[in-house]
């Protein structure tokens, strides 16, 4: 393996892991509040399509990014209304959200199929030379903000009063309620933040990686992110390691293809999924569950 190839793999694993990290962080926030959202894939799609459409219209990727984040939050609030406000089944509602997002993104993206945009600008870190090192130091803003965001989310969840309430609701809503908190309100806030992050994750795909819109372009990343939450044991800091690892699997596969390796792309595309399985099995072996105790359960209030 040449130095250039290694640098390429590292560079693109950071780039493709970024989107996964934002998505995983979003799902972690929601799940810490006790809500499983299987519709993350739909949020990513809406984020990717909205970000792309707005960027193509305004020519300003920052505006596109903001629109994507807001669209993600708005769509996730529909989900929140159903599972929190109407106490609907989380799994069924989540899958519906995936359908909703796939349809809505197809509608939003339709006029922009084939359009090319100038995506988020690459910011160069000063002081680094040419060649491989320069490639490692030239990313869009979302890449640089990814790790700080993970730390921020960790801080929010584990070091603030807000996070304490969110986690209490995820562990036992009845106790949180008895302690004078409002579980529904905490869950709405957590899901709004989750949608914001999901929208950003989708936007990173279309505004920084592909620079085009294609139907279903998230290709299951939303589901990988849900698996990554388990990998990360619901901890935002561990999510960074997970996203890098899985971004790396994807990047390695792309680099090998670019280098002309004689392996079917279909087999290499399986690598991230098989890796996910391996990790889930290893963690399952370990038996100690780190999941919030009330995860996925609908709280029906105090009668």
């Amino acid at each position, binding site marked *: 393996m040449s130095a250039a190839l290694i640098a390429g793999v590292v560079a693109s694993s950071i780039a493709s892991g970024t989107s996964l990290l934002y998505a995983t962080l979003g799902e972690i926030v929601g799940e810490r509040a006790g809500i499983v959202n299987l519709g993350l894939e739909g949020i990513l799609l809406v984020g990717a399509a909205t970000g792309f459409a707005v960027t193509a219209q305004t020519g300003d990727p920052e505006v596109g990014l903001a629109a994507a984040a807001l669209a993600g939050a708005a769509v996730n609030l529909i989900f929140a209304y159903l599972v929190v406000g109407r106490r609907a*089944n989380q799994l069924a509602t989540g899958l519906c959200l995936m359908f909703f997002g796939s349809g809505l993104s197809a509608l939003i993206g339709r006029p922009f199929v084939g359009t090319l945009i100038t995506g988020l600008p690459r910011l160069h870190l000063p002081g680094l030379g040419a060649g491989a090192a320069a490639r490692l130091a030239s990313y869009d803003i979302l890449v640089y903000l990814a790790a700080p965001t993970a730390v921020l989310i960790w801080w929010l969840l584990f070091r603030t009063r807000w996070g304490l309430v969110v986690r209490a609701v995820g562990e036992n809503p009845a106790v949180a309620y008895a302690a004078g908190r409002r579980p529904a309100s905490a869950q709405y806030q957590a899901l709004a933040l989750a949608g914001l992050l999901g929208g950003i994750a989708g936007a990173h795909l279309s505004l920084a990686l592909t620079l085009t819109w294609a139907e*279903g372009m998230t290709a299951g990343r939303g589901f990988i992110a849900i698996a990554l939450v388990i990998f990360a044991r619901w901890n935002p800091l561990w999510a960074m390691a997970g996203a890098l690892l899985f971004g790396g699997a994807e990047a390695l596969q792309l680099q090998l293809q670019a280098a002309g390796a004689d392996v079917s792309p279909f087999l290499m595309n399986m690598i991230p999924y098989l890796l996910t*399985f391996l990790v889930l099995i290893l963690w399952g072996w370990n038996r100690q569950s780190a999941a919030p105790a009330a995860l996925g359960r609908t709280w029906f209030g105090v009668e």
Partner: protein
Amino acid sequence: MPRSAATIRRVETALAAASRFALVTLVALGAFAALLTAAGKDPLKAYVDTVLYVFGNAYGFSELLVRMIPLLLTAVAVALPSRMGLINVGGEGQLYMGAWLATAGALGFSDQPAVVLLPVLTVLGFVGGGLWALIAGLLRALRLVNETISTLLLNYVAPMIVGFFIFGPWRSPESASYPQSPAFVDAARLPGFLHTRVNAGLVYALVCLVLYRLLMTRTRWGLEMQAIGGNPEAARQLGIPLFRYILAVMFAAGGVAGIAGMVEVTAIQGRLVSELSPGYGFIGFLVSWLARGGAGGIVVMSFLFAVISSIGDILQITQGLPFAVVDILMAVVLFIVLGRRPAGRAR
């Protein structure tokens, strides 16, 4: 209560439920129409076109039945495990793997007569989907990985296996630009009825539904499955073999979805292609969920979703919209149902 009065009561509740659901559908159609209008399209024309196409002539209606086949089968594949509390979201992947193994049979035993070949392909389709679901079943039975997440992920792996084969070993020499497997021999084609595309798959689907209903209502197995679904720990204490039940039920469920894949390749496509299903497996999940796992409800909901997906076809053909746009309509129907279901302990 005399028997006839009880029957009347049941019919009345069914009618009330049907009319409530019709209202839900109308509201969803209205919301979807508003969205399409906002996007500069003509929803009313699309609705009228759909009705004319689907109910206007025998062929259109027959196409509706064709579309119902995979929905019925994938819905049973979800309903069966749901009775014991297992959530199979992997109908899509199981469908692909059933199609894959059936294709292996169709290409490998192409010298056999139809009488031999078709039963073999049916079994292969069942086994292909069944084994795929068994991965998730085994991981769940060993308490390693939750079946919801494993079946979801396997959905993405199965089409890659199909892709690998039709771009590689099974690539047909005459398809240069659009890779697909060689065409099946006539003996490997599932027969149709009366020059339509309606095929013996409909019989498979109805047989599966009847067997499913009989299993749940008339056998000890069905009873024990519901016991597991109600309280797994209590069921285990009663000596019900949970491990074996999980494996058997996941295998059977995946098998039913696999038959849907076998039907797609042997009756509709006549070869293995990469775009085998527009999300039948996922729609099957929603169908089963709306029907609450009931056999009769699955028929009604499959019909409804077949009509909805016809709207998708019409939008694609006459208004230049992607087929996926109709997913919005499906989701809105479900959103309304999810939102108005009473806040009881519904599943």
